[in-house]
């Protein structure tokens, strides 16, 4: 049989942002591919120069969204520690757009302290939290976002802990751009990503994402990503509608949209530059 020539082969329009020879790895039906595509679509729409970005990720499935596939600068670090690394990187390279990928465990559990302090500093990072409500890579243990009652690998009698609302946490801790979407809302993720990387401050995008293998196992939707996506569609309420609804009607629903945007709050690296500039001019003034 004749091999199909390369020129006739289908080429994904975003393939140019992938490192040569890298195969993208996810479990079947995982939401990571949707998140990766949404972000790369955003980069494409922003001019397509991936060298303007730096990608930082930690440990877990979400760490594999940029690393090693994206053909830009990648820093793949220890579990929960991507925000400190991104903070140092951003201070060293304030003009670089630093994009951090974290899972809900990486961000809400082991890295929780770094998260609240990065929000508080309002440092200009874009953080995308892939929230699948479970520890996927380690085999389906409870996450800080796992709903109460779920029987996971570490909660065989049902989860008795209450889940974190990571977007609410971001708002409370001082983030200045917060959006929440699900993997059903791929185009909206792209639009929010464009705003987030242009936003001068700590920008947080929570993406509720399906894990059909591990989360699917505990909710009876094993390997049924279509049903999970359909569930996101059915259960999502736009923020504009949600603010008018009573709490009782919002139970079990996912409020999506841009929850907060405060570009006027001073950004950390700019504040560092400002105080140094003032110290310099004060010194010069003193000489006169």
């Amino acid at each position, binding site marked *: 049989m004749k091999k199909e020539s390369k020129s006739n082969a289908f080429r994904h329009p975003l393939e140019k942002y992938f490192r040569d020879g890298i195969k993208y790895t996810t479990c079947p039906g995982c939401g990571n591919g949707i998140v990766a595509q949404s972000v790369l679509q955003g980069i494409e729409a922003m001019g397509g120069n991936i060298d303007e970005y730096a990608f930082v990720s930690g440990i877990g499935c979400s760490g594999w969204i940029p690393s090693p596939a994206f053909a830009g600068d990648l820093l793949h670090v220890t579990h929960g520690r991507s925000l400190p690394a991104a903070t140092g990187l951003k201070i060293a390279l304030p003009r670089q757009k630093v994009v951090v990928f974290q899972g809900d465990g990486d961000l809400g559990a082991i890295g929780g*302290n770094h998260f609240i302090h990065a929000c508080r500093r309002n440092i200009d990072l874009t953080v995308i939290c892939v929230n699948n409500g479970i520890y996927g890579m380690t085999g389906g243990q409870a996450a800080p976002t796992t709903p109460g009652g779920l029987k996971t690998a570490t909660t065989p009698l049902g989860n008795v802990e209450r889940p974190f609302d990571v977007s609410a946490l971001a708002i409370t801790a001082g983030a200045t751009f917060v959006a929440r979407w699900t993997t059903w809302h791929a185009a909206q993720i792209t639009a929010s990503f464009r705003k987030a990387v242009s936003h001068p401050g700590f920008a947080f995008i929570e993406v509720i994402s399906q894990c059909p293998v591990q989360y699917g196992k505990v909710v009876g939707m094993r390997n049924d990503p279509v049903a999970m996506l359909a569930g996101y569609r059915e259960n999502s309420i736009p923020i504009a509608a949600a603010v008018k609804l009573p709490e009782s009607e919002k139970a079990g629903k996912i409020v999506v949209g841009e929850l907060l945007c405060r570009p006027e709050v001073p950004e950390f690296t700019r504040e560092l530059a400002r*105080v140094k500039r003032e110290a310099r001019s004060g010194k010069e003034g003193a000489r006169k």
Partner: protein
Amino acid sequence: MNKKDVNDKKSKKSGKTDFLLGNVACAEGALYAGCGFFAAYPITPASDIGEHFVKRVMDREGFFIQTEDEIAAIGAVIGASWGGLKAMTATSGPGISLMLENIGLATATETPCVIVNVQRGGPSTGSPSLPLQADMLQARYGSQGDYELIACAPSSPQEMFDLTVWAFNAAEKYRTPVFVLSDALVGHMYEQVHFPEPGELPVINRKIPERYDKKVPMFLDEDVAPMSVFGRGLKSNVTGSTHFADGTRSVASIAAMDDEIRKLRGKLHRAIDEITLDETCRIEDADVVLYSYGSMFRAALAGMELARSEGLRVGCYRATTVWPFPEKRVRDLTAHCKAVIVCENNLGQMYYPVAAAVAENIRVLKGTPEILGGLPRPEDVVRWVKEALK
């Protein structure tokens, strides 16, 4: 007498001299070496280093940030180093305990950085302001996996300056974390410190490739690969997972794992003669050699002088760099003697590598002060020497 001094003392013709704290001298050394980023969490007895640094960089190039904890401090140091800045942190024992995972990351990703440990007593919170040489093995073995890094041990405020400059140079040259293992005694000691003029001491900067070329190794080169710092279109592929020379992760290959572990370690072991700094004093005719480092070197010297005045043939080996351990050199230098006393302000941490290095027919004893946290008196050292010669 010195095998290699940190700096040639004869070259110190210009510059200025001041009377200051060891920790302040350390911060000045960092500035001299071109440190552009310092992240730390406050801890006694190391805080003065960052406090002095931040005052000095307020109106010039360079940044200091106080992080939420030590884990974030070393994480930010790694990020800043990949952002192209020379980066450091300073802490004490409990802070190092928190940093260890990311110190492993810095080793695995060949990230140049300087970690100052102004050691205090432990375990746990211990005695925050009392000096012990408590973390000698932790510095070398604390993170998981087989790895190697560089550590030096200053014994005076002058050396807090000189060895901090040296530590940055070694970090940049070998792309590795470098420890400055001080202790509260040296960090909080006031002494005369000479500051050389800019240009008097060498300042080394990392090699950076000019363009992205996926065929050029960026990692795991035993001759030290150039560092593809961020923001220059070099498409850095940095991961703490097992990786190939281009940075690509490979977590399921035994061959890749073996290759990485051997090469990361081999990089420093190949250069061990160049890295090693030490001093010997009256070792040629010595029956007993005192092995010491850091603040303990001062006590060993005083003990040696008293012992010599009593007719005992005692010499000193001072490890200026503690890691990587120069096994062959320690064995060769002590081959002619009857005993080695490992003098340190702990219950015997460097005793084990020294005991493993010296020849079988030589006695190796521990020299520990009667009360930990204090230095031995010269008479104590003489007593140890007599014990060793029995």
